[in-house]
């Protein structure tokens, strides 16, 4: 599955300043692995470990087609051709 991955300013040091990069995979997990292959070091900034399993870092939000993946299966969220994956740091509103 070919997807578009939007990278926030703060992580563009890993993508040579690119705002948006091509991603591959059937799940978010696979997309992040593929991203790591092209942009080494980025995975470590996105993921943490909790009881031995990888989880998204607390201040990282990821959306597939605008929906927060924490409510759609987390790293196991499936992605389809043409989906947009947006990575954003968590910020305050109000």
């Amino acid at each position, binding site marked *: 599955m070919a997807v578009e991955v939007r990278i*926030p*300013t*703060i992580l563009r040091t890993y993508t040579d300043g690119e705002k948006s990069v091509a991603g591959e995979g059937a799940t978010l997990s696979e997309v992040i692995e593929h991203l790591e292959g092209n942009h080494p070091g980025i995975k470590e*900034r996105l993921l943490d470990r909790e009881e031995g399993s990888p989880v998204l*870092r*607390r*201040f*990282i*939000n990821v*959306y597939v087609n*605008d*929906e*927060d993946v*924490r*409510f*759609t299966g987390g790293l196991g969220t499936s992605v389809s051709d043409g989906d947009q994956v*947006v990575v*954003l*740091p*968590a*910020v*305050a*509103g*109000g």
Partner: protein
Amino acid sequence: MRYDSLLDSVGGTPLVGLPHLSPSPDVRLWAKLEDQNPTGSVKDRAALKMIEVAEKDGTLRPGCTILEPTSGNTGISLAMAARLKGYRLVCVMPENTSAERKQLLAMWGAETVSSPAQGGSNQAVRVAKQVAAEHPDWVMLYQYGNPANALAHYEGTAPEVLADLPTVTHFVAGLGTTGTLMGAGRFFRENKPEVRIVAAEPRYGELVYGLRNLDEGFVPELYDETLVDSRFSVGPRDAVRRVRELLDAEGIFAGISTGAILHAALGQAAAAVTAGERADIVFVVADGGWKYLSTGAYEGTVDEAEERLEGQLWA
């Protein structure tokens, strides 16, 4: 309806149907008009409740100075209540909020400390914490972590919705401090657990996410994700498009964040139609459009409006 004072009139807002935007008689949309609170936003509920609880527990005493980080509405609500109750109010507000908000705060007698645009409300929170440390006698109500913020919706907004519309299936609101969704979410979990709680989060321009490092990220202390069923990130283009649809089709003149909330609500409506399920979807109209006229969101094409909102805290 008659009240003893303006403060007594907070809450009890109308719930109105949207006959034109609802996709079918079985899938209906309803707007909870929080813009009809005294200062024109849903934040009147939280501000008043935070003050009342702080008065009751003795944190807030006559002559106190209240300090609060706010991108606008909470500050305006606090300013009104503080004026009527005789408190001084100091707000820490990001400099990239609309001019109307600054003017309104000044009108109600609040003082404003500006925080840098870069980093948005995160910076306002950080600056407010510094100011609080310099003035230990000031009272920071701190909407992001104050349970009274959610309590206002647990005791007010959500029970009002259930009383007016016992067949409610979805509750959709904006996610900022998370107070509305946490309070309403807890109420529905306890009283009608099948109601789906849906969050719409504004997605701003890049400037707002310009943190120096990821450890500067912020999740409000109030936030409990088990009280939410799905969460959507809505950009300025969809928010502007929907806020204009709401005006054109139903005559409701709402603020830009309400466009984002309506976008999420319409997504739920479309899903219900596809699934062949009945739905009564309530969404919160957080405020009216008046305070955002100067942003340019209501004139010209959607492309132009989207461009003008870049870098602004529009919700």
